[in-house]
């Protein structure tokens, strides 16, 4: 069958016009734990890797005459229980200390005290938000993702090599849970976000 829209030439034409998203065109813009730690864009230049989260519709199966019929169910946010961000570790380790303080605020083991949000409610409230940006090559924001209701889960370990170290830069990973995300379209001529 002739498929004139899907030739090498049309692929090349599209590649020239639309280009491709690159692995570095992404930023963690801000992390705001309500009434707790706040990481601003200047702090987050040390964010090395992060993922744009996904959204899954749960599959329901109805069987009839030995055949499965796959029906859409409700939504799940895979990985929302531990969204990971890897950071460069600055020499004064302040980024990790900020996150470690947030972990201690979330639950302090010495006095057995758990923190609260600005309103006195849960830390994981609607004001605790991680903002992610997808960028184009002009570093203009295309889409903004807001992970709503975030609260710290893991502050990763750092392994040092005292005897045989080569001066390698150290990283650490932090993981944050969130409830769900919403999207805002920031660039023009983009597919509008539908939030309902």
């Amino acid at each position: 069958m002739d498929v004139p829209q899907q030739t090498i030439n049309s692929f090349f034409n599209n590649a020239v016009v639309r280009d491709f998203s690159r692995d570095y065109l992404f930023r963690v813009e801000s992390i705001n734990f309500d009434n707790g730690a706040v990481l601003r864009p200047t702090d987050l230049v040390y964010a090395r890797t992060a993922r744009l989260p996904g959204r899954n519709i749960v599959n329901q199966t109805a069987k009839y005459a030995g055949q499965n019929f796959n029906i859409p169910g409700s939504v799940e946010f895979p990985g929302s229980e531990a969204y990971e961000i890897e950071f460069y570790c600055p020499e004064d380790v302040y980024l990790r200390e900020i996150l470690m303080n947030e972990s201690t605020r979330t639950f302090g083991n010495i006095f057995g005290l758990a923190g609260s949000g600005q309103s006195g409610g849960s830390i994981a409230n609607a004001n605790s938000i991680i903002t992610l940006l997808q960028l184009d090559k002009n570093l203009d924001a295309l889409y903004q993702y807001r992970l709503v209701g975030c609260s710290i889960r893991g502050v990763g370990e750092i392994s040092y090599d005292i005897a045989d170290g080569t001066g390698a830069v150290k990283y650490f990973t932090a993981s944050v849970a969130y409830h769900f995300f919403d999207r805002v379209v920031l660039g023009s001529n983009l597919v509008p976000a539908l939030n309902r």
Partner: protein
Amino acid sequence: MAQITKNSLVKNFLDLMGGEWAYNVPLTTQWAVAIVPDAGGYGNPDQLFRIIKDYTQIDAHSFYIPIRVQQKLLNENTQPNLDGLGLYFAQGVTIARESFSVNGIGIENSGGYLKGIVASDRLGMSDRKLSIEFLETNLDFVDGLIRPWIIAASYKGLINTGEENSIKCTISIQEFTREKNVYDMKPQKRLHVFKGCVPLDVEDRVLRYDSEPTEAPTSRVSWMFENYTYEVDPENYFGVKF
């Protein structure tokens, strides 16, 4: 019986399931519960607290429910409106079953003759329970309202002494499903209404020094009810009362 054509089984199933709202498979997690006291109604649950307070004080002052707690349990914050969020604390519902029994009737020494089947009793309302699991919060819906409610009901009894003095409530359970593309309303597939409800039982609660559970703690409460109705596809107001 008519012959079934070769291609009809799977195709017809798919056509029905995907072609019409009535035969669509529903979502099972989309539902809401509302508890409305008979005394005072939805807008004035304080009346129920007054009755509970009056009766529990017979037992001990320790069951006294502070006004600030009363104002937070069944007010508009926790069940904003009957068509909306539903009761904030509700996490799971088990809707009571419906059944009746049958007996085999025959004569002795009837040999190979089978006994006839006759209908016996329908399951009584006292033998079935509506149960609701409530989320445990700092305010604690179960210990703040249900536990004293059970105690007050045990003193007061179930005799109707007028709506304003009633210890009972109406519990509505709305089941939502996929959109029908007709109205802006959240599409209901079924509405259960249980009337004359009184909490009967709060399950045992265990506190341990284990690690925190991975799911938020809940408590199950069993309710009696006097009668129930349900509406299938409530937009059509097709109601059946039992």
